């Protein structure tokens, strides 16, 4: 496994729109290293023939009926919105979208 350096953490932080001070980097770099070492240990386990775990809850096929309900008003929903206009949520334009949905 590639060694985790301050530069690795800086790169991941930038992707997550975060900024860390030098002291924080000194703390996070070894922590992240330990987490990845732990993951590497787990990868050593032989999982041949073991079905992947998708859910830890022992339930399946939980449905609700198709009954519409009004829970919150627009005013309630908008309480945490920093910028709004005519009932819309106002955000900076982001054009470069691969909206592959």
């Amino acid at each position, binding site marked *: 496994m590639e060694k985790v350096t301050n530069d690795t953490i800086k790169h991941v932080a930038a992707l997550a729109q975060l900024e860390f001070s030098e002291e924080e980097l000194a703390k996070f770099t070894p922590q992240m290293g330990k987490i990845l070492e732990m993951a590497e240990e787990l990868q050593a386990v032989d999982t041949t023939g073991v079905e992947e775990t*998708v859910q830890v809850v022992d339930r399946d*096929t939980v449905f609700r009926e*198709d009954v*519409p309900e009004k*829970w919150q008003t*627009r005013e309630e929903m908008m309480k945490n919105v920093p910028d709004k206009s005519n009932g*819309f949520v106002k955000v*900076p*334009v982001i054009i470069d979208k691969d*909206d592959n949905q």
Partner: protein
Amino acid sequence: MNFTSTIGLEVHFELKTKSKIFSPSPVTYGAKPNTETNVIDWGYPGTLPMVNKEVYRLGLMVALATHSHVNPVTHFDRKNYFYPDNPKAYQITQFFKPLAENGYVEVEVHGKKKKIHIHEMHIEEDAGKNTHGTNGFSYVDYNRQGVPLLEVVSEPEMTDPDEAVAYLEKLREIVQFTGASDVKMEEGSMRIDTNISIRPAGQKELGTKVEMKNLNSFEHVRMSLAYEQKRQQEILLSGGRVRLSTRRFDTNTGKTVLERVKEGDADYRYFPEPDLPPYHIKQEWVDEIAANLPKTADERRKIYVDEYGLKPYDANVLLQNKESSDFFDATVAAGADPQQAANWMNTQVNGYLNEKHAELKDIALTPENLAAMIKLISDGTISSKIAKKVFAETVANGTDPKKYVEENGMAQLSDESVLAPMVKEVVDANPQSVEDYKNGKDRAIGFLVGQIMKQTRGKANPKVINKLLLADLASR
């Protein structure tokens, strides 16, 4: 040099539910922005999705109607991407274990039948609607967030734009007649993405694909694919290389415009949705849905033409949408003659709907009232001229035709014992017309009919008058 095109299509259908896929927010079209949402739709921390059973039922109907293999176990996955219309920063979809796979749609193109296979279909949530302003800001409405979608992904088996459109028309018809979606492209309840690549004829390896998103009419699909075929051919013939890209169809110029070049497929870091359990679809449920599937358009077409004797054109007009076909079926079930019912549906009823920009569900006319009015015409109670007045009243106000005719004294006079003396009186009073008729002037009959109609204030049944007149004249 000849080229072969390879076309694949991805179609999103908005499923016709009352509430959203993972929350009980109402599903509406055209509501004020952000009024039909709740904390689940907005992805508030601590909220959990819960699957709407109706979404599965409608999805299974489409799967069965397209001969697809229903997966007995399905689960949901997270598709991660950041964009303001996606409040959780992931979309819940089905990537690893979709609802159904390996279906097909049979189409007829250029006189040949062809099966176009469906790779898979899966259910997922729609995103909100992002409107870009001119001031550096976008405006987001989350009403559409969480509306259930069924995405149907074809195999890349179509080779020209006509095949692609034939597939879309057939798929639209199938989905509409299951009742799973109202497939209104203008409202976004059917949306189309296309993929097209070309390669020299005989070459095994596929060319580089170009994607076009959110095409909102079949004609635009046809035009954009035809344009892309030509554009890509010109690139290859001039020794160039087609780039993996997403393009947009410009409706004003009829050309496709580059939106972005892809470096490869986007990495959405799919992983199983931890907030939802796996879904085991019991065979009994699938069988029950299969047993209750509505008649397909093809089955209805066969009944209309073979059993009712309708012309294929009239049958196809009735089958333009499920509502129209259902209304016609109910009118016939209420006792109307099928040919008469088809004539009224395809002319007067459609004319009224076009004039009012309305749908059948929006107007006061019922199949029972239309059938009652048709019966009044066929049993001679009212003339076709009077029927138009009765129809105008019934379609506008839902008035019972029989009652309306009785209350307004609109019934035709068809009783021969009442009409015969009137006919005799008119003929006796017009010896010149009798003479003219005997001399071969058929117009004389028209004059005599007019006189009787005048006497009865237009209420006499013209058929009965003609019959009585001819009998009277023959006896003189």
